[in-house]
């Protein structure tokens, strides 16, 4: 597929890399020559120097042959304009990044009028991610599968956990099949578990749990499940603004630390119920004064990644709060993982996941599209949700153990007319089911791809 990416920033580059890996032809447009040179030198894509809102530049980038244009410059207005021009000039699919909250309020109107196929808002997505984490504070990550009504939780096994030293069979019988372990991480190694795989304290595991069972399962695992009532947020950017809105709707108290007085004024006006503190969030005195040691949750969402990391490490040291760190820019995911920051949210990855899913669906004719896609653990594992359509006859009606599934691929959950089945080798896929699959195999676009 021919894809044009307008804007060579962090999101643009992440997108270009991911989509190129899926073997699409990528042309990237930017006004900065040096950034463009670096991008073209690092991956097999074409660069076009110029303003992506200019028709001439878009034509030079081949918009007439393009299937999709993704506008992710720093300016919402430019993104929308680039999409509008591409849509009118070439009729291709267009995706714009719109992140200014005042535009985003009317996003459905804008989307319809401009003919956007999709709108991405990394800040909004990050806020939703953080919100979910605050609801289940014992989890390191929470990913939701809305169609099948299950969540994927990732957490670390503590020394006194009932899971320590058990193998999969024992875990299953202990929890009565209400939870399925689908990934085990140990010392940087990723394993898609089988029946005999053993768990140990210190391992990080990702599990699929039906939403209605979450509380019960967490109780059995002796994990904390008290909902958080108050949250302290460092940094008052767009993510914070979205997050505060979400939290206040469910009655959580929010305290925001922001160093820019003008921004404080804006926040105070838009979020009247939140407590806005004007002060530098890296100042220990202020953190103490505002009660960090007794905070229930602390979200590090300033505009500077290094500052967020420092704050998270400090907060973990002085308090028992649930700490969530937002990392927007820096690229050392494995180092960040080693720091044991707890929950980390990467807005650019969330955005890329959505677009990769969209592009896979666009390129897939048979209709068994990926409904939801998560790229986990630095992209080494993918978790996907499918609806089984009649065209997937090749994989329906056959017992899973006889299907010849790909290696390192696990069918984690089947939602059959609202009833959630944790599948065993005896189960089958049927038309109308919603299934969740976890795999280390790359490039699965269609449900038919799960068999060897």
């Amino acid at each position, binding site marked *: 597929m021919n894809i044009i990416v307008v804007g060579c920033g962090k999101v643009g580059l992440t997108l270009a890399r991911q989509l190129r890996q899926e073997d699409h*032809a990528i042309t990237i447009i930017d006004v900065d020559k040096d950034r463009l040179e670096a991008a073209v*030198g690092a*991956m*097999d894509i074409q660069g076009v120097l110029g303003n992506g809102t200019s028709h001439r530049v878009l034509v030079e980038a081949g918009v007439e042959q393009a299937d999709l244009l993704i506008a992710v410059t720093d300016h919402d207005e430019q993104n929308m304009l680039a999409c509008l021009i591409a849509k009118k000039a070439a009729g291709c699919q267009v995706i714009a990044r719109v992140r200014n909250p005042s535009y985003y309020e009317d996003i459905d109107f804008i989307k319809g009028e401009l003919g956007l196929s999709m709108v991405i808002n990394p800040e909004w997505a990050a806020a939703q991610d953080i919100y979910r984490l605050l609801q289940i504070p014992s989890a390191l990550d929470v990913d939701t599968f809305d169609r099948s009504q299950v969540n994927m939780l990732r957490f670390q096994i503590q020394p006194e956990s009932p899971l320590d030293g058990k193998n999969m069979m024992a875990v299953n019988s202990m929890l009565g099949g209400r939870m399925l372990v689908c990934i085990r991480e140990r010392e940087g190694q990723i394993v898609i578990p089988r029946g005999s795989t053993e768990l140990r304290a210190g391992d990080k595991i990702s599990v699929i749990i039906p939403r209605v069972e979450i509380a019960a399962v967490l109780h059995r695992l002796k994990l904390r499940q008290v909902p958080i009532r108050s949250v302290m947020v460092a940094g008052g950017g767009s993510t914070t603004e979205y997050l505060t809105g979400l939290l206040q709707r469910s009655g959580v108290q929010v305290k925001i630390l922001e160093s820019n007085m003008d921004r404080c004024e804006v926040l105070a006006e838009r979020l009247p119920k939140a407590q806005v503190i004007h002060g530098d969030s890296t100042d220990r005195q202020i953190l103490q004064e505002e009660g960090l040691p007794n905070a229930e949750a602390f979200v590090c969402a300033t505009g500077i990644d290094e500052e967020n990391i420092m704050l998270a490490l400090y907060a973990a040291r002085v308090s028992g709060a649930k700490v969530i760190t937002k990392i927007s820019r820096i690229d050392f995911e494995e180092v960040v993982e080693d720091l044991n920051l707890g929950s980390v949210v990467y807005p650019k990855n969330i955005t890329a996941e959505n677009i990769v899913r969209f592009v896979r669906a666009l390129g897939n004719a048979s209709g068994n599209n990926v409904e939801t896609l998560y790229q986990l653990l630095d992209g080494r594992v993918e978790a996907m949700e499918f609806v089984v359509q009649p065209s997937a006859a090749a994989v329906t009606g056959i017992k899973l153990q006889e299907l010849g599934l790909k290696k390192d691929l696990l069918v984690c959950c089947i939602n059959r007319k609202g009833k959630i089945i944790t599948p065993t080798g005896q189960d089958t896929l049927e038309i109308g089911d919603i299934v969740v699959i976890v795999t280390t195999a790359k490039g699965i676009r269609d449900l038919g791809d799960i068999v060897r």
Partner: protein
Amino acid sequence: MNLSMIAYIVGCVLEIEAALLLLPAGIGLLHGEQTGWAFLAVAAGAALIGLIVVLRRPKNTSFFAREGLVATALSWLVMSAVGAIPFRITGQIPHYLDALFEMVSGFTTTGASILLELERLDKCMLFWRSFSHWIGGMGVLVFMLAILPLAGSSGQNLYLMRAESPGPTVDKLSPKMRSSAAWLYGIYLGLSLLDFTLLMIGGMTAFDAACLTFGTAGTGGFGVVGSSFAGYSMMCKVVTTIFMLLFGMNFNLYYLLILRRFRDALKMSEIRWYLLVFLFASGTILLNLRGAGILGRDAQPIDAFFSVSSIMTTTGYATVDFDRWPTYSRMILVAIMFSGACAGSTGGGIKISRFMIYFKAVSKELRRMAHPRSVRHLRIDGKRVEDGTMQNTFVYLVVFVAIYAASVLILALDDFDPTTTFTAVAATINNIGPGLGRVGPAGNFSGFSYLSKCVLIFDMLAGRLEIYPLVIFFLPSTWRKQA
């Protein structure tokens, strides 16, 4: 420096060369020539060595500008060294260095020969000589990029393409390297087939038509008979004049035409300059020849057009001995030896696009002297030429002149006349083939000492790879360990 990755690339090149060597082997066996077996033997050897290298696929595939330059230079050296072996082991060219000269001349699309009598060479040898032009014209690494999934989706292979393709700036035609390379080779193959068909219609035998098409397409210039093009029909001469010009044009033009972006294609100023230079040179030579009373007697108008097209695109075919033309005509021919063809073509020389930059930079500088505060950007086709590109272009000229001067000095030790010495270097470093004097269309390079031949081999490679890869390759600091 990632040596294992460089070795891997050279191994791939060996595999490709082994496959290409099967073609002359087949031609030899078809004509019942025993020498065909030599190609088969060398192909087998190259395939084996290549396989040993390629099977050890490097773990560290990181690959940057420096590796790209070195890998390109090394690939071309190895390719020529291997390609020369059949000439030596069959005894058709007794000395290995002579064989290497002939082969480098082939791959670099120069067409300078040390052979006295072409007619004594076997058909398969003639074929391999000409076929090497076709391979070298577009470049073997570009071919490799078209067929091998090298380094997957990373951008590293752009460095290889930049090192091998001519011109001050090199960019991909389409977003994917592989399809860009495939497009280039597709256009190349299509034009070659058209040329071949027209030459056949013009009355050539299939063998001659194939060999001369290879020479035209790669802008090489090896003939199949001693008299080069003189003995062929009028139609063949006209067709070849036109196709030499076509292969000397920037291949972006054809890509734009295929995409039906006619307006952009028409706007390519390099093509316009190129055609203007062609018309000016052939026009003045025609007038000069008429004034000297040669036109109509010893030379026809087509000969003037043919010679200009042949020299300017750095092909080097000849229909007449232009060394006997008046001085003015000969000087024009020497001048267009240096201007060369367009960037992004198969031709050599300094390239029209570089001269456009020189010309515009000089006029900008002169204007700045009159108006010291004027701010002005240098533009080509409406696009700004970056300062880095401009610097690089000027440095290119300096290094070019330096290598040229040093080569002339070494060649002077052979004590030939100045015209021969000067144009021998010009004809090799610009990848043309024939010069003037003893190396003119009627002469050849066999008279030079082996030292001079080595220098000319270096010049031919430097000219084809546009100097930098080869210079970087021989620079000691490239090989020093760095943190």
